[in-house]
């Protein structure tokens, strides 16, 4: 594996990790959302520095090329992330709905006149 590839992967992975941790530290990203990202960052660093590992995984899953392995896991990660978002959005939507209902229930407007 070309040394430039290794450097690129390592720099990208470490930068991503540092950025995620910084976001968590500044409380812009909640820990519960960060774990998927931290896993991805670690995977990039580990696989980027260890080509033998990537080849081993490729053989293990029966892929033809190492690049297929990377794409497979990359897409798998994105799909997992989207699913996590969908779950969170579903919950948020229910909460927003309940909140709006609660708001209107607390302030019923009474009819005018003496009907």
């Amino acid at each position, binding site marked *: 594996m070309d040394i430039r590839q290794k450097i690129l992967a390592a720099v990208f992975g470490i930068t991503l990790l540092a950025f995620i941790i910084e976001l968590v530290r500044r409380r812009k990203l909640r820990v519960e959302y960060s774990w998927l990202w931290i896993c991805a960052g670690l995977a990039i660093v580990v696989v980027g520095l260890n080509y033998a590992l990537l080849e081993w995984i490729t053989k293990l899953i029966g892929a033809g090329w190492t690049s297929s392995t990377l794409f497979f896991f990359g897409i798998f990660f994105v799909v997992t992330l989207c699913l996590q978002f969908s779950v969170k959005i579903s919950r948020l939507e*229910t909460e927003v*709905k*309940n909140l*709006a*209902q609660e*708001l*209107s*229930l607390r*302030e*019923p*407007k*009474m*009819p*005018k*006149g003496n*009907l």
Partner: protein
Amino acid sequence: MRNDTLILLPAFNEESNIGRVIALVHDALPNTTIVVIDDGSRDATVDRALEAGAIVLSLPYNLGYGVALQTGYKYALRAGFQYVVQLDADGQHNPACMPRLLEYVRDGKSDLCIGSRFLEGGTYAIPLARRAGMFVFRRLASLLLGQTITDPTSGFQAMNRRVLELYAHDSYPVDYPDVDVIVMLHRHGVRIAELPVTMFPSAGKSMHAGLRPLYYLFRMGLDIPLNLIRRGDG
């Protein structure tokens, strides 16, 4: 003496109809509390409803028909009402039919009484695609329920507190309440009945135009089986 009954009218931009509908409801069931759920209307719906003598619950933004209705169910439960009659605020449902639906539930003949447009040869124009979809799910619902339901999509209903509690629950599909709700109720042992009602022609705006019938088919095809396997319905 109707202190235990609440009338629910979900309304979105119905300033031209709401006053008349409330007056007709008053005529049909005098001295009954009427609650209009304003689903973020941008016109004078709220003022018209208040002038006509209704209590108004205003949602802060438009959340859809199902959410508006559920807000009303929650209100009814908290205020301790035993019975609820719901009808659309666009004037399509004839309030004169309300007492019959209500009495049916009140007499304990069923927990939910749906006002059907199709019983006794009602003539009601519905686009072909939607009618096909309705036919399929009507048959499916009838199969699952072991009884014929001719108009499961009707928004004209009378119910008791038992149904209210299920409707107010988070598992009520607020984004698309339809045949699946009936199936859900049936699973909880709710007794459902239908009575024929007369309908006034709708004042224009169709809820089921364009691609909606296709989406309807898709959603009900998904919702009904998913509802059957879903946990946490109580």
